[in-house]
């Protein structure tokens, strides 16, 4: 019994003394990267701009911006370490920004590096910047104290508020590796000390091929997201409506709608002709209308429903045509095809050729449930 006790003691001593400790990453000694931006320089190198959290009560601002040029993103990190008093760590990364030029050349090398680093969260948002990310991140901002927090919160708020499609690292990588669907990334632009989400980038595989505006992004979300889309402002022609007062208002009738529930259903009708049927059910409430229309009259509401449905249908058809023209499939029609056709043997190249020739019949069932409640 005494022998085993001695052996145990020796073993535990060995475990404690020989193995040593894990490598500590004490919080206040780490430079925590919260936002990273990638640009391409003229000589083809990557210019990386990072924003670090500045943990110092006496510092004038609570972040630091550093820019370095290198051939790879990790190479840039090594170089940036030389400029920083604290060891750089990307475990708190929230947003990764790519300039339009970078995405036009191909996103995947950079995104893959992010995805393979285990300390980086899969829920990091990716976004495209119109112009240079360096300028955006270095811009002096009088309205907000911390630009990295601003960009993160703005993306987060709009994605959670159902205004634009979600574009986390995980979703982007998933869409890239699926043959029948292409990723989408929001486009942001900095101007006059403000940051605005101006639309969504259309991407073929990992290269940006076009862009759509914020309203079209709403339709994209309506098609892709099964349950809920956000609010939208629609313009329709005032023909056929009887207004209560004949005031000479604006030419177009503007209606603001808030989605209560939506459903989209895409089916492959004919696999030879590549005919798709896209059914969209939308239940909304009317928030605002810019001309005096008597909404207590059911006839008016019916007419409004009909006209808005038609407007939506044509808008969606326009969006699909636009995406087909650049061979980008953010709707995931390829996945529907692969799901419906046995032995489809779909590859990304094969699908992008087929996609341009496919036809989509859009059906919109539009309903205004309430006109009274206004948020």
């Amino acid at each position: 019994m005494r022998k085993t006790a001695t052996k145990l003691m020796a073993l535990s001593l060995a475990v404690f003394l020989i193995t040593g400790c894990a490598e500590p990453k004490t919080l206040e000694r780490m430079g925590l990267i919260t936002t990273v931006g990638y640009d391409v320089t003229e000589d083809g190198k990557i210019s990386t701009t990072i924003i670090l959290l500045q943990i110092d009560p006496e510092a004038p601002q609570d972040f630091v911006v550093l820019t370095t040029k290198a051939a790879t993103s990790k190479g840039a990190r090594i170089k940036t370490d030389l400029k920083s008093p604290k060891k750089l760590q990307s475990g708190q990364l929230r947003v990764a920004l790519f300039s339009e030029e970078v995405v036009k050349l191909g996103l995947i090398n950079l995104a893959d590096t992010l995805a393979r680093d285990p300390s980086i969260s899969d829920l990091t948002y990716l976004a495209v910047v119109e112009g240079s990310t360096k300028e955006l991140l270095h811009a002096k901002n009088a309205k907000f104290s911390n630009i990295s927090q601003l960009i993160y919160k703005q993306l987060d708020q709009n994605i959670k508020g159902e205004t634009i499609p979600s574009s986390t690292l995980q979703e982007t990588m998933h869409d890239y590796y699926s043959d029948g669907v292409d990723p989408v990334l929001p486009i942001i632009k900095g101007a006059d000390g403000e940051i605005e989400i101006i639309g969504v980038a259309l991407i073929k595989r990992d290269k940006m091929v076009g862009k759509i505006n914020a309203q079209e992004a709403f339709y994209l979300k309506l098609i892709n997201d099964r349950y809920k889309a956000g609010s939208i402002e629609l313009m329709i022609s005032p023909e056929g409506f009887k207004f209560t007062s004949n005031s000479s208002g604006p030419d177009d009738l503007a209606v603001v709608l808030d989605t209560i529930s939506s459903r989209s259903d895409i089916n492959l009708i004919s696999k030879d002709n590549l005919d798709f049927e896209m059914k969209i059910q939308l239940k909304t409430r009317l928030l605002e209308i810019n001309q005096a229309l008597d909404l207590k009259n059911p006839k008016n509401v019916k007419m409004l429903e009909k006209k808005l449905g038609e407007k939506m249908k044509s808008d969606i058809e326009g969006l699909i045509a636009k995406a087909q023209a650049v061979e980008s499939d953010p709707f995931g029609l390829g996945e529907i095809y692969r799901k419906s056709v046995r032995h489809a043997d779909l590859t990304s190249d094969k699908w992008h050729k087929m996609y341009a020739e496919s036809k989509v019949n859009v059906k919109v069932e539009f309903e205004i449930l309430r006109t009274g409640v206004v948020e």
Partner: protein
Amino acid sequence: MFFKKKKADILNSMNKKNLDDMELIPVKKEDFIQRMKDLLHHSADLHIKELQNGLTLVYVDTITDNKMINEDVLARLEDAQPTPDDALKRINVGSSGKLKYVEEIIDKILKGSVIIHSDGYPIIVEAAVGTQENRSLTRPENESQVLGPQLAFNESLATNISLIRRYLTNPNLCNESFTLGKQTNSGISLLYLKDIADEEMVERMRKRIQKIDVDSILDSSTLVQLVEDNSLAIFPQLLMTERPDRACAWLLNGKVAVLVDGSVQVIGAPLSFFEFFQSMEDESVRWQIATFLRLLRIFSMIVSIFFTAIYVAALTFHYEIIPQTLLIPLGESRSLVPFPPIFEALLLEIMIELLREAGARLPTKVGQTMGIVGGIVVGTAAVDAGFTSNILIIIIAVSALASFTTPNYMMGNVIRILRFPLILLAGFWGFYGLMIGFCFLLIHLIKQESLGTPFLAPFYPPRFSDWPDSIIRFPLAWTNKRPHLTRPRDRIKFQTRKSKE
């Protein structure tokens, strides 16, 4: 292993001791008096009173009732015949009898009896006239509660048993008596309900008590350490209570209770780990509230053990998991501290332990100063001086507070101590270390037994029918069965349907 052998030897030698080995009582009066004086070493309080008619009274006056001796014994024996039979007939004491051996009468004298020797007879008459030095019944101090009986055991074995008998007016309540301790000869009582308690459990407890060979038992907390299953474990495996209602609830669930003379705590066995987090008040309040309170206590145990360790691990190794809005205030208060998080946490934990230990031994009047010293000087000044971070103060305070919610003092102590190894593990290996610590604790708990029954029941092994009264409490009608843990002879407490009507 060799301990056990030794114990068994002693037990055998005790059994061999024959009645014939005992010393007979001297017949002659002078011999008897001399023998008594020798055996009790001429003790100052030993009284030997020789009466005219040849009777001799021996007693220790510090533990006997003078009034009883004068009125019920002395006054009646004045004109008695000098025979044991006549003396026994005349004395007016309820508990009296005849004895044959010297060892017996010494025992009786020391327990407060007066013995009467008749010249020429080898037989002694004994009458119990002892006083019970005993404080009156008070409110429970350690297990106080708002609802329910406000009564605690006191230091007298007889009073304690009478309290239990008052609650359980039941002929099946068995009381077995033992004497333990070579020097102290303390009285021990083993109580159980015959038709409910499992005979095997009772036998196991009986054997464990009989096997004990110590020189003294002064309190039931010492006895617990001698009868529990694993004395190397950090967790107590038997629970003690000072509430008679709780002891009765245990008996009614088929448990056994062990009482020690001179101790206010009653030992209950077998018990599961989760009963350390239950209070009698859970039975008095409504079931929703009882469930909430029980879950709160389990939650606070986890908080108390792991909260500081998680802080240390997160700040030393896993900055990724800290919410970004917390990063700046946390980092800023940390940036002034010269030590790594593990030293910071250990320092503050030890400060809290110092405060607590100092407060526990101080009189209440001085205790108020402690609050000021602890709260203001240590708390505020430590942060101002850049000794610790603000957030750590909050975390340590919360985990200290959480450790006080455990209704059992013994378990509370364990929770306090467990923090330190976990902080060390977290400081050296981060969450990996914490995980190892947690697994070690869990395996340790699973291995424990309480009177031979699994300690983590009813969760390991899973006994679903006992779940309604574990870390939650369902309405009384749902908990009409006694727990599997005690293997009760009669599992049904009452019929649900009848109780509803």
